[in-house]
């Protein structure tokens, strides 16, 4: 069975610091990769996704993620975080053309003003 690991459970940063959240998955076949974000009191929403093509994916609010197939990784990055980025971030994977998402354990990000 596939699994998704997010190594950082809690991250605390100051505004303007750079962010990188790790995500590794275990499935060896073709996958689709997602980052979801849950802001306090809001629905879980899609931040960005990778299906194919350029492994560097740009999402909303200045976030990007890089798919490195050889490392089974899909790390999320942002060059300069803002207080409003405080949220919980989830990495998710599904098999190509499948509907089942497997989520990582989530990373709680707190950005100090």
């Amino acid at each position, binding site marked *: 069975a596939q699994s998704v690991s997010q190594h950082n459970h809690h991250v605390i940063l100051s505004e303007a610091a750079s962010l990188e959240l790790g995500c590794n998955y275990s499935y060896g076949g073709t996958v689709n990769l997602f980052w979801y974000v849950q802001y306090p009191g809001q629905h*879980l929403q899609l931040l960005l996704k990778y*299906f194919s093509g350029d492994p560097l994916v740009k999402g909303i609010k200045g976030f990007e993620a890089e798919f490195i197939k050889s490392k089974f990784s899909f790390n999320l990055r942002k060059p300069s975080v803002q207080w409003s980025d405080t949220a919980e971030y989830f990495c998710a994977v599904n098999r190509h053309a499948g*509907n089942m998402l497997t*989520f990582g354990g989530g990373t709680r990000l707190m950005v100090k003003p």
Partner: protein
Amino acid sequence: SQTIHQWPATLVQPVGSPLSLECTVEGTSNPNLYWYRQAAGRGLQLLFYSVGIGQISSEVPQNLSASRPQDRQFILSSKKLLLSDSGFYLCAWSAQGADEQFFGPGTRLTVL
């Protein structure tokens, strides 16, 4: 546009009591529907998914069940709640053949 509703938003139930959580989707037809649970400090765990009316697949054996009586209605139930059923329950939908899932606001269940 599509919207997804869940109710109740919060629920406190005693151990051994029944449970019924409802999820409805508007603005789309024949969606895939999903129930997830988010336990404290853990990720989202897929509980059930449905590709059509009356078609339910279970990902994790437990004392919960799901039903889909109508195309855009998905219900999560239990006959007798356990303490371990406490958590945040999320409903989601996706279009047939699409990978992106859209999530509802969730129901926070506390079993005492």
